């Protein structure tokens, strides 16, 4: 095939341009491809992203629930911010952190569809980590306390007991906040 531009040399390069879903192809020789190449630097990409997937899923769920029609699903409302689940399906945005708890039944399958999973395995905030560390420490100390009592080392047992009480106090204070 001859180059579509100079119509003299053999075409060796095919340049495909995709813009707004329209595909155009040009078969060019090496020399012309070099000249043409720079004119093709604007390409629009198919915008596949989670936001689009989310709104698609929510729309589908909305249609589905309307088709069921006759029996309306009781309106669920967030106990903290008052957002209804219906509001969420319209905007795709949740109202507050408690929404995740109150809409948990509906959100879990949605999250699984969006992310492939529904449980977090990454970082834990320092405050929670501190608490978890303390809970674990108390568990360990309780074991040591039992051992000390069995060995009748009451002096050591008293020390451990004080330490446990202190840690539990700190945890209670944190929970009260």
């Amino acid at each position, binding site marked *: 095939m001859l180059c579509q531009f100079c119509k003299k040399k053999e075409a060796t390069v095919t340049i495909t341009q995709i813009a707004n879903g329209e595909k155009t192809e040009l078969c060019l020789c090496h020399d012309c491809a070099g000249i043409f*190449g720079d004119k*093709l*630097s604007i390409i629009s990409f198919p915008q*596949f992203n989670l936001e689009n997937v*989310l709104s698609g899923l929510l729309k589908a769920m909305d249609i589905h629930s309307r088709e069921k029609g006759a029996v309306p699903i009781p309106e669920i409302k967030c106990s903290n911010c008052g957002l209804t689940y219906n509001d969420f399906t319209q905007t795709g945005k949740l109202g507050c952190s408690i929404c995740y*708890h109150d809409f948990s039944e509906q959100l879990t399958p949605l999250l699984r569809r969006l992310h492939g999973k529904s449980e977090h395995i990454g*970082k834990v*905030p320092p405050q*929670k980590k501190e608490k978890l560390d303390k809970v674990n420490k108390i568990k360990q100390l309780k074991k040591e306390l039992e051992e000390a009592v069995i060995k009748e080392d009451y002096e050591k047992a008293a020390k451990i007991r004080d330490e446990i009480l202190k840690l539990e106090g700190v945890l209670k204070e944190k929970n009260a906040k």
Partner: protein
Amino acid sequence: MQNNIDNKKVLLQNLVESSAEWTNGIGPLSEIVISSRIRLARNIESIPFPARASEVDLKYIYNLTKQVMEKSPFFKDLRLVWLDELSPLERQFLVEKHLISIYHAREKHPYRGCIFNQKETISIMINEEDHFRIQYLLSGLQLTKIWESINQIDDEIGKKVTYAFSEKKEGYLTSCPTNVGTGMRASVMLHLPGLIKFNRLNDILEAISKIGYVVRGFYGEGTEVMGNLLQISNQITLGLSEEEIIDNLEKITQQIVAQEQKVRRELLSKFKNQLEDQVWRAYGTLSNARIISSAETMELLSKLRFGVELGIISHPDLGAINQIMLLAQPAYLQLLAGKDLSPFGRDIQRARLIRDKISN
């Protein structure tokens, strides 16, 4: 912590005059990877997310931020600016600087803020879509280093406030369920003229979308691809650890870089004369034009950048090209000029600035 309204003018003036670390053009693989960025979305337990928050809630976050900043020596060199105190033009300037998102600049609710450091590596948006959006930005491919730094900042804040976090389930809770889990978006900005020229990009993009990564434009989500620059970032934020997300992105980036390098070698061996001609023509236009649009500037800068990356031309260097790219943007231009300019006036001012920068 400098957060005085009186300081606002000084603050902005400093920003206009200074250049961000990420623009220096000397990071690892900077001949293709312009910058790397990680952002974390964080919220305070029980307080409604900004879009549904009352003015009292928003003010609460505002005061909380001030307290955290004042208490921690970690934040003493950071600057804080409240967007209500800025004009639309000044807010647009912060977008052009990549310190805030377009959404943050245009949203109407009060008490929106931005915290940043002098090098512009750190930026924390307050009351954006989430209560806090922490961002860390460096030049070249440096995701691991960024994670170390941003993790520290996040801990520093997380020790003082109670983050919305669900231990056994969704992790960090965010306004949009597409951010929940790690709340992390990691991204790299790439210059890919070779792959775009040969249209080899679509295959790669299809492949990365299958494993949960996506392409965005120059200013992030929903923005255009300009000057052969595009951003690749993770979509999936839940069920993967932060390290896994970063590691995957780093590997994807290295593969794309290798492909781009291969195409560049091919281009150089087959079209050396044409490439040299294009690069020098771009240089000629940029150093002589009297009127130039923003779109033409981006296109020519991409060619010039390509020339530097291929070793065809050595002046201006990548750092200078990055700076020209930023200050050629509309709001930056007008703040530099110290007055509002019409689109035509901007085209003249832009051409003048570019000539000055290139001849220096």
